[in-house]
């Protein structure tokens, strides 16, 4: 097994490189992706190796980055668009929802919307406004789109390649605060399918489900809970739309208690969807209502307050206390 230690940023870079080597139709497009290598350096060195026609430094307009990618996909290309930050995706929202999501259907399957929209999302880097948002639910709500998120370098390496190979349009959410964390990457075998949830830590008492940056936080909470004699199972959803409810339900059938962790406001969120869907599936196994630990119903705060806003180990443990309390 060929494993290498690398950061998530490097893993994404290597994954993109491998996808571009494998298929000449794969293009990268976005703001500052070429010479600069992207503001997070995810595409570092790719323009130098693949040329300006395949790694396209674009003018600054998100709707056009996605809209022209649609045209390239119609022509048979497989564009990977970089949206610089989560909060800048909204100018492209119209193209994503009205065109990217619907053209396969509208053309009776003739058009393949084989494009990936990379979206650095969630907070935790001390940024100014519009650089730390969690817009995944907007896209998960739209039929025709798929939404995935990586939480480890190994997933980043494989999931970006799997997304590029996939024929449906994929919103690829990258937890930007994990870009610089290192992990082992098996570069020979993909450990999981793109749409599978994965149990990151087995446990007996409570099922924690989350994705992206929240996975690390959940694992820390599980370690802390262990010291108190509580066994938490941590599931990395990985695919946000569709959800791998089978894996989550199998866990919940055993634990009977569910806490979902994410950074978006909880109303009409991925957390709401997971709690709702699993309540229906696992009703007779539930020992407590499913809870969410999420962002508050406020705009993402000035980042000096982001640690109060984002799900923390303490807030997760508090929710664990509450679901455990229903047994009394």
């Amino acid at each position, binding site marked *: 097994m060929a494993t290498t230690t690398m950061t998530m940023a490097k893993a994404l870079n290597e994954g993109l490189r491998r996808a571009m080597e494998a298929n000449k139709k794969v293009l990268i497009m976005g703001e500052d992706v070429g010479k600069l290598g992207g503001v997070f350096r995810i595409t570092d060195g790719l323009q130098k190796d693949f040329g300006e026609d395949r790694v396209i430094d674009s003018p600054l307009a998100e709707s*056009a980055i996605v809209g*022209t990618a649609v045209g390239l996909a119609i022509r048979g290309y497989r564009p990977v668009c970089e949206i610089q930050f989560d909060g800048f995706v909204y100018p492209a929202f119209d193209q994503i929802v009205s065109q990217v999501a619907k053209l396969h259907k509208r053309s009776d399957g003739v058009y393949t919307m084989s494009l990936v929209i990379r979206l650095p999302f969630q907070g935790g880097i001390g940024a100014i406004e519009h650089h730390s948002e969690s817009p995944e639910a907007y896209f998960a709500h739209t039929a025709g789109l798929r939404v995935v998120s990586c939480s480890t370098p190994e997933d980043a390496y494989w999931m970006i390649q799997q997304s590029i190979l996939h024929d449906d349009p994929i919103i690829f959410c990258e937890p930007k605060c994990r870009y610089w964390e290192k992990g082992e990457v098996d570069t020979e075998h993909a450990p999981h399918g793109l749409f599978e949830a994965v149990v990151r830590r087995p446990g007996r008492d409570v099922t924690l489900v989350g994705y992206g940056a929240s996975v690390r936080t959940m694992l820390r909470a599980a370690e802390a809970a262990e010291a108190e004699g509580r066994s938490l199972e941590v599931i990395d959803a990985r695919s946000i739309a569709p959800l791998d409810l089978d894996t989550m339900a199998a866990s919940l059938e055993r634990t009977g208690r569910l806490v979902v962790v994410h950074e978006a406001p909880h109303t009409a969120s991925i957390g709401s969807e997971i709690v709702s869907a699993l309540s229906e599936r696992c009703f007779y196994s539930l020992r407590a209502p499913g809870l969410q630990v999420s962002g508050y119903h406020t705009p993402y705060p000035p980042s000096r307050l982001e640690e109060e806003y984002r799900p923390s180990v303490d807030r997760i443990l508090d929710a664990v206390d509450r679901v455990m309390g229903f047994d009394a």
Partner: protein
Amino acid sequence: MIGEELVQLLTPEGERVSHPEYESSLTNDQIVSFYRDMVIVRRLCNESTSLQRQGQLALWAPVQGQEAAQIGAGRALAPMDFTFPTYREHGIAWCRGVPPADMLRLFRATSNGGWDPQKYRHSVPTVVLGNQVLHAVGYAMGVQRDGAEEAVMAFFGDGASSQGDVLESFVWASSYNAPIVFFCQNNQWGISTPMSVQSKIPLYHRAHGFGFPGVRVDGNDLLAVYEVSKRALDNAREGGGPTLVEAYTYRLGAHTTSDDPTRYRVDAEVEVWRHRDPIERVKALLVREGTVKASYFDEVAEEAEGLALQLREDVLAMGKPDPLTLFDDVYADYHPLIEEGRREMVELGVAGGEH
């Protein structure tokens, strides 16, 4: 009113006029054939309006008045060129070979598309203003990367000219020198919004600000539209980059069958444009030059009548689609919610087809 920069090769009275930069290259056979196209497209359009009035279509977007703009541009296209329409490009669809009944699937509300866009090299209708123009630019960037000698034509109107997507398209096409022709049919009205609210300068002037040429052509002049379109398409294919063609025309009918233009524009204006009717002026030319026998006009009208009857028959035969098709082609690959929906519908015993 129109201005001296307008490219015109045929007056409203059907007289040929010369222009310093453009000359008609059309043979008599071509003019005769394109006249037929225009008559048929108008007749099919009128039939569609009737079908809507009779409750057989959910909506119809008439093209009446814009036939020269669409047949002129549509016939200037080469077979391998690719076109990105709005919902009013019935004349372009006709030129691309889309069967008339397929053009009405959207309006019959049996499909959100209607035809195979790759087969006809004519994309599916786009209802959100301006979205398709970016697709056209992206497609043109693909043509460029393939090294293909093809051009792309993007259609939009004066209404969509205010959309960010259209203006971003100008930036992209200019920056990458994309092989594209932006074909703007300025029909003077975006539903009730007049041109004066959309732009304080002629639309074709905008192109200069983006760094590529813009041309205003008499959109009711078949000969001029053909030449201007052809030159712009040739230029794109030869690597000359984008051109904005503003076809200066008029929407003689309503925006759609849901619209009431008498609320926002005066009859006198419509009358002025009726005198500039694009079909009548070609007919006047053909009569003036004795190109066809007098019986030709009746023959074309009769053929159009037959096609209209056929269209009516085809549309009436278009039943409600099988409800299970709801779940087809939402995704290219397996999706659990699609399977769940399909299963639920089957279990509910929803039968397919007409009922």
